């Protein structure tokens, strides 16, 4: 008999712990007991403790089974995950908090990711699974989080939370365009065009339409069913490669990462904002990308020093001005930083107000 289709996901109501069921929608307040431990108190007086820990996102089923063992022992078989891949153990018993922390740490997982620091880094697949990756994801994230570890476990704190993310190409599956600090894989060389394969593999009008700048044209020789790329118009987005496998854009010499800063999605204090380009290009340097981790550390530490309480990265930069961001960090400002795409003019300074 064929399997049933369209049954949808399991109903969450069958998966939530009793304390959640009993106090559903009746939560009164919360506090961060210590890094990685949240205490939520309901109108009824019931308490719910959540113990949050780090995860590499790319995990084995044995990792999940290890988590299940802890949840079976201390959480009546219940756990959840956050939107940033952090497993959370849920218990109504205060006495279980320390044993859970010990059990989690025994697995080698850090407890933290709450409050004014750095939580887990949202990221994509990279070289482990993706065809359009301009850089790796899991490897680079591991290298970055090793450096940011003190901010996860609460040994070091920041003016406010800092969300890190990484996308391995500008398709940005991790939606990094609105986070405090982001790493994006970039290509810097135009795609190759494999004329002998293109006619068979790709639809030419679709391929041309895929180019945001109109850089792709039919091959001038009518007998060759292929396209050409205008190098003056191409900005290496790779959208052509997405629709046409005969236009590979990966290039070990040119591929690397860019760094963006100051974005956010929350509305607290200031409105959501885009992350902005701060470092246009750093070549790939696996397995630890030291140039990338050092640059991120520099930006985080400059923010830690200059940010006022509750200022997000972007709010700190708004207050001091981008010109001061570049002078304080010492990062070079170049022609690459000035927008010349669609909404460029909204970023030009129509004022004599600026700092030095």
């Amino acid at each position, binding site marked *: 008999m064929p399997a049933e289709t369209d049954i*949808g996901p399991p109903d969450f109501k069958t998966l939530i712990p009793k304390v959640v069921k009993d106090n559903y929608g009746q939560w009164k307040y919360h506090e961060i007991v210590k890094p990685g431990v949240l205490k939520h108190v309901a109108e009824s007086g019931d308490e719910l403790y959540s113990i949050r820990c780090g995860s*590499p996102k790319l995990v084995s089923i044995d990792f999940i089974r290890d988590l299940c063992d802890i949840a079976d022992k201390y959480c009546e078989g219940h756990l959840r995950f956050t939107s940033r891949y952090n497993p959370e153990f849920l218990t109504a018993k205060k006495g279980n908090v320390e044993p859970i922390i010990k059990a989690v740490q025994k697995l080698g997982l850090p407890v933290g990711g709450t409050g004014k620091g750095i939580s887990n880094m949202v990221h994509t697949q990279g070289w482990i699974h993706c065809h359009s990756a301009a850089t790796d994801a899991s490897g680079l994230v591991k290298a970055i989080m090793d450096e940011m570890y003190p901010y996860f476990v609460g040994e070091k704190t920041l003016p406010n939370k800092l969300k890190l993310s990484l996308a391995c190409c500008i398709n940005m599956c991790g939606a990094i365009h*609105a986070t405090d600090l982001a790493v994006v894989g970039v290509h810097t060389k135009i795609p190759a065009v494999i004329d002998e394969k293109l006619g068979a593999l790709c639809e030419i009008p679709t391929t041309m339409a895929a180019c945001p700048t109109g850089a792709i044209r039919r091959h001038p020789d009518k007998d060759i069913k292929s396209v050409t790329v205008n190098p003056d118009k191409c900005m290496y987005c790779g959208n052509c490669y997405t629709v046409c496998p005969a236009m590979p854009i990966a290039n070990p010499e040119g591929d690397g990462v860019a760094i963006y800063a100051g974005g956010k999605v929350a509305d607290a204090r200031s409105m959501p904002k885009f992350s902005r380009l701060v470092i246009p290009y750093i070549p790939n340097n696996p397995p630890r990308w030291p140039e990338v981790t050092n640059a991120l550390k520099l930006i985080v530490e400059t923010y830690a020093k200059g940010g006022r309480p509750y200022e997000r990265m972007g709010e700190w930069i708004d207050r001091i001005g981008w010109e001061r961001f570049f002078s304080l960090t010492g990062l070079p400002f170049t022609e690459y930083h000035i927008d010349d795409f669609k909404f460029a003019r909204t970023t030009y300074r129509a004022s004599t107000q600026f700092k030095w």
Partner: protein
Amino acid sequence: MSDTPLVDELEKGPWPSYIKELKRMAPRKPAVADLLKIQEVSFKEKKTHWKHGGIVGIAGYGGGIIGRYVDDPKKWPNVEHFHTMRVNQPSGWFYTTKALRTICDIWDKYGSGMTNMHGSTGDIILLGTNTPNLQPLFDELSAHGFDLGGSGGDLRTPTCCVGPGRCEYACFDTLDFIYDVTMTYQNELHRPPFPYKFKIKASGCTNDCVAAKGRSDFSVIGTWRDSLRIDQKAVKEYVDGGLDVQQLVVHKCPTYALEYKGGKLELARPEDCTRCMHCLNVMPKAIRPGIDKGATILMGAKAPIMEGANISCVMVPFIKMEPPYTEVKALIEKIWEYWDENAKNRERVGELIDRVGLPTFLKAIGLKPVPQMVMAPRSNPYVFFRDGVDYKLELKK
């Protein structure tokens, strides 16, 4: 000497290592052993070794599987196919260990044993299996109550924050709403009917823990219409605990709506409050959302491809969010109808709005223009009076 020295480097350091995870699976999963070798070669050559996906799928479905092939199957035969299955997560990512162990056992039987908990959109990602295993894998997941998530030009797996399951900020039932729309639109989720992807995400307040405003075409954000509630006893507790209410709360209110006088914190100018959540974030014990709760609907967020990244913009300033969510669903369906009719291939709804203009889009989906939708009125004189002037100035006396 190890044959993967670069990869081994990433077993070191305090952050949990995905390489250790791969190495746990490698002895019993030849595909994962190959994966480690590929990662080493990618580190050495600084490039990916995966090819474009071909079309693979499950009987009766048009999405949910990402086809993936290695570029040199002779060298790495165990990952010749290495497809991904997206499995629709439960609302709020709540699990019982029984449910998780079931997934693990099934994935052990049919795949690489490697997963993402979870992918960026929210699905459980089962990373790496071959074509013949796809159908039996799905059949067994389905028999145990799981179903596929979205991919391609369809409704992508809807996602939400933890909402009323744990959070006092939740202004509507995000968990129920997302479960409800997921169940209502199973067909749109499983059989790609659209010009491109369509994402629905719901956050219970504007802190927006699932980044709905940053990445979903249809972002539902909890808010309230009346005034926030302040508990003076709890304010005093914060003050006694050393919190500088004047500096950190009153001074940092973006609209200067709060006042702290004589030991009392008041919302002195409630009409100025934009419900940004800052004061609640600092003093969750003392300040709570109002009572008349609902949501703001914003639309159009997306990543850069292809006209540039967008953050969602206000479409409906306030809507009550109660099951069966008839009004919201009617709006979603109207949007789909207009988008389907008018979008170019691979044009996200936000890009369609940019191309035709917000006034045209509003008319098409039957929404009345209100000032909450814009940051400012237009500054240019280029108004289209296509159908004559539909405006009559009547000054209030």
